[in-house]
């Protein structure tokens, strides 16, 4: 038995945990912990990491290309050869492009694929003449990217993980790391609290495993976080708790901001959010007077129609207190998947080029065109949710989906299904026959994360290489290989002349200056990787904003923010606030985790949390079936009666069918759909 230990990066969340896959003759046998290396996880793993080889050999794995024979959505296919599949895709894409123009084509990249794969996919879209290229960041981080971008000029996590150990106060806002990033929580946050005495402030409508450690827990109605943020700004400014020197030196727009937040008192915020004014005041004072602070946000803040505004207000709080650029500080939003940040940096976005340079940045466009050898289309593409509308309007005819599952991840799923039933041509490249793949004309079998070499960027901005640790089943191939095959068939071979991932990474090094130093040689030699920006092989940047911000004049822009309600709020007809959350044992739409034996056994089904007083009023007992109805549709859940959610709010994990209930109202800046709240009514299912 030839047993080999291959170092990999965890395929699930974005902490960037390292471990080994024990490979026996190409077969993944189990995982082994990494005790020796200086890894970010110190060898530790959460249940997803430990069991992450389980889904690899699941019998449902796609092993051959498939062509649809039944109705769309029915999931009936016949096996075809790779040659046939690639030929047909190329032909249909060409036809559609000729008939309707390149903007009738769109591509979806993936936070679950490597940076190399995302890079070649966006390059293919652009080579075909369209900027219609997107990935799920639109649905989890885009408001944070837009909000922090406007204030600071860069959206990344500001400091290395170690800095949180020195923070005096930690604010976790709409973020439950004990369930979503357990290793980051256990190795850094929990140590800061239990061992180093940091104070913890949690803002979340639910009392979570994270909130268990909180000194202060603010429980707002979902989507009213902005009211609390504005009131905290009000307290910090009116009580003069801000860092006057820092603001004078490194920020502009203070007067305007101060004037705007005058009316947003804690008493006002109490009426809007349901959080006692005194608690908001106390939180603001604790935060501002701590000396060092970490303020981490996630989807509880991001996924709202007022998400960008909330992120701006929170970032401004950090600026006012002068926390940026210091040790013992941390600010950022946490991508959901292991390469959430990497895909974005590769330019898998309708309005930005590789390196996140805006499409209209003449100088960068020219430079990249020179590397690529063809012209980049100038017209910005359309965003993820807008693609669905464009399909329904008949403007978008073909969609190419790589490793992502919009038919379960998007809000208002009935509408999405309608779109996928009516699209002219749909290709899905994935490891399982996902909900989306069931609508596809052609399905291509892809290699899973451990079955290929590739690079990912964790939420710490750390670039790490993962190595091939198992053979792909059947005829499944790495995503980059499939894209290159297709590009060649489309007659674009000269631009896609790669024989391995290292070739692609070397081109990335040339195309994206902040990644110039993340060479294949460096990443292979140094498993700990390096932190972006890494402009050359000896450099990396652990801490952002030490000198100035990345805005044009280097100063933080304190843009005043006004309050805006979430997209849908309860009324007489739909009196409850509905929200969702994640379970530690599942990942996104469950394509992989529902197929992992040890995970699905422990986290088998969805349920809805309802406050004990609400339950009593409605005659609902723990375990009863309840019908939850929004303006879109209704679902039935098992009730979990608990004191840990505030009255008037109900919440369910989103890994199952939750998105049939959600609305597709968009944030005005980032076009993020409001996935985190909706108005609903509930009733007990009798009988």
């Amino acid at each position, binding site marked *: 038995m030839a047993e080999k230990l291959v170092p990999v990066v965890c395929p699930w969340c974005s902490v960037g945990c390292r471990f080994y896959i024990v490979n026996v003759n190409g077969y993944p046998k189990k995982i082994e912990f990494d005790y020796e290396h200086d890894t970010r996880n110190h060898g530790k793993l*959460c*249940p997803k990491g*430990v*069991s992450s080889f389980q889904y690899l050999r699941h019998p449902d794995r796609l092993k051959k290309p498939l062509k649809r024979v039944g109705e769309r959505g029915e999931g009936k296919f016949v096996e075809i050869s790779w040659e046939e599949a690639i030929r047909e895709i190329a032909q249909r894409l060409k036809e559609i492009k000729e008939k309707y123009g390149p903007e009738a084509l769109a591509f979806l990249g993936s936070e679950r694929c490597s940076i190399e794969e995302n890079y070649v996919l966006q390059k293919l879209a652009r080579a075909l003449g369209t900027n219609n290229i997107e990935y799920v960041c639109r649905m989890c981080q885009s408001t944070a990217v837009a909000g922090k971008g406007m204030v600071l000029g860069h959206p990344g996590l500001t400091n290395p993980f170690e800095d949180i150990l020195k923070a005096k106060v930690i604010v976790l806002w709409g973020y439950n790391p*004990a369930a979503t990033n*357990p290793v980051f929580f*256990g190795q850094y946050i*929990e140590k800061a609290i239990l061992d180093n005495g940091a104070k913890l402030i949690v803002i979340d409508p639910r009392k979570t*495993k994270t909130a268990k450690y909180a000194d202060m827990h603010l429980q707002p109605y979902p989507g009213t976080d902005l009211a609390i943020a504005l009131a905290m700004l009000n307290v910090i400014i009116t009580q003069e708790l801000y860092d006057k020197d820092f603001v004078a030196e490194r920020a502009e727009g203070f007067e305007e901001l101060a004037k705007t937040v005058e009316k947003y008192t804690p008493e006002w915020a109490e009426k809007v959010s349901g959080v006692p004014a005194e608690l908001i005041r106390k939180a603001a004072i604790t935060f501002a007077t701590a000396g060092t602070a970490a303020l981490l946000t996630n989807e509880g803040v991001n996924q709202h129609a007022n998400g960008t505004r909330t992120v701006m207000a929170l970032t401004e709080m950090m600026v006012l207190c002068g926390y940026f650029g210091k040790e013992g500080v941390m600010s950022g939003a946490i991508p959901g998947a292991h390469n959430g940040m990497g895909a974005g940096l590769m330019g898998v976005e309708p309005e930005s080029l590789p390196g996140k340079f805006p499409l209209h940045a003449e100088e960068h466009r020219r430079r990249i065109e020179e590397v690529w050898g063809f012209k980049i289309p100038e017209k910005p593409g359309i965003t993820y949710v807008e693609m669905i509308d464009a399909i329904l309007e008949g403007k978008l005819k073909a969609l190419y989906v790589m490793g992502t599952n919009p038919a379960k991840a998007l809000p208002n799923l009935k509408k999405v299904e309608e779109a996928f039933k009516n699209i002219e041509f749909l290709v899905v490249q994935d490891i399982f026959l996902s909900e989306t793949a069931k609508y596809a004309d052609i399905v291509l079998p892809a290699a899973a994360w451990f079955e290929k070499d590739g690079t990912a960027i964790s939420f710490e901005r750390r670039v790490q290489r993962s190595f091939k640790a198992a053979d792909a089943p059947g005829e499944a191939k790495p995503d980059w290989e499939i894209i290159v095959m297709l590009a060649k068939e489309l007659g674009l071979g000269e631009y896609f002349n790669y024989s391995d991932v290292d070739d692609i990474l070397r081109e990335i090094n040339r195309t994206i200056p902040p990644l110039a130093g993340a060479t294949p040689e460096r990443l292979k030699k140094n498993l700990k990787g390096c932190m972006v920006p890494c402009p050359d092989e000896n450099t990396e940047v652990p801490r952002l904003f030490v000198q100035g911000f990345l805005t044009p004049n280097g100063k933080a822009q304190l843009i005043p923010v006004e309050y805006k309600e979430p997209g849908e709020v309860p009324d007489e007809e739909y009196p409850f606030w509905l929200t969702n959350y994640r379970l*530690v044992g599942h990942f996104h739409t469950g394509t992989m985790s529902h197929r992992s034996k040890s995970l699905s056994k422990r986290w088998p089904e969805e349920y809805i949390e309802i406050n004990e007083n609400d339950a009593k009023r409605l005659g609902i007992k723990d375990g009863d079936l309840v019908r939850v109805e929004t303006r879109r549709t209704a679902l039935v859940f098992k009730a979990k009666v608990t004191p840990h959610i505030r009255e008037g709010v109900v919440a369910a994990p989103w890994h199952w069918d939750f998105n049939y209930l959600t609305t597709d109202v968009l944030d005005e800046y980032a076009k993020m759909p409001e996935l985190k709240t909706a108005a609903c009514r509930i009733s007990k299912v009798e009988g």
Partner: protein
Amino acid sequence: MSKKIFIDFKRCIACKACEVACEMEHGEARIRVFEFPDLTSVAFNCRHCEKAPCMEVCPVNALSKDDDGAVVLDPLKCIGCLMCAVACPFGIPKIDEYNKIMDKCDLCAHRRAEGKLPACVSACPTEALKYGDINDVLWAREGKIVAELKDIGDRTNVLEAYLIR
């Protein structure tokens, strides 16, 4: 010297990585995480008692202590009489329905033989599970308090600082 897994329930976040890690090693999890309504949770496995009742009642001496002090089962001797299950105050030994013999935590004997930690301890992201000799574990805790006192002591009078706390 006897080593054990110590459980610090203050740190447990009920993530069940320990259960899953154990399941990966043994096919079935021998450690269980219990959650309580107030959000506390405790991972619970064999205590490998100094005077282990399971060992004492076993009629065929299938249970014994190994060099590290772990109570381990010899599957070739076990007759599945369930005496150990009845005797164990923590309800740890379980019958393996397929083989009709007992199954229990052995502190991952095969991993220890390779110089590795028990799987559950390796995984636990919060270090709620610690493996070691009781004196070392206690010393690590006391050491921290002593270090803190020393730190304060450098600035004021140690005794005074201690009394203030």
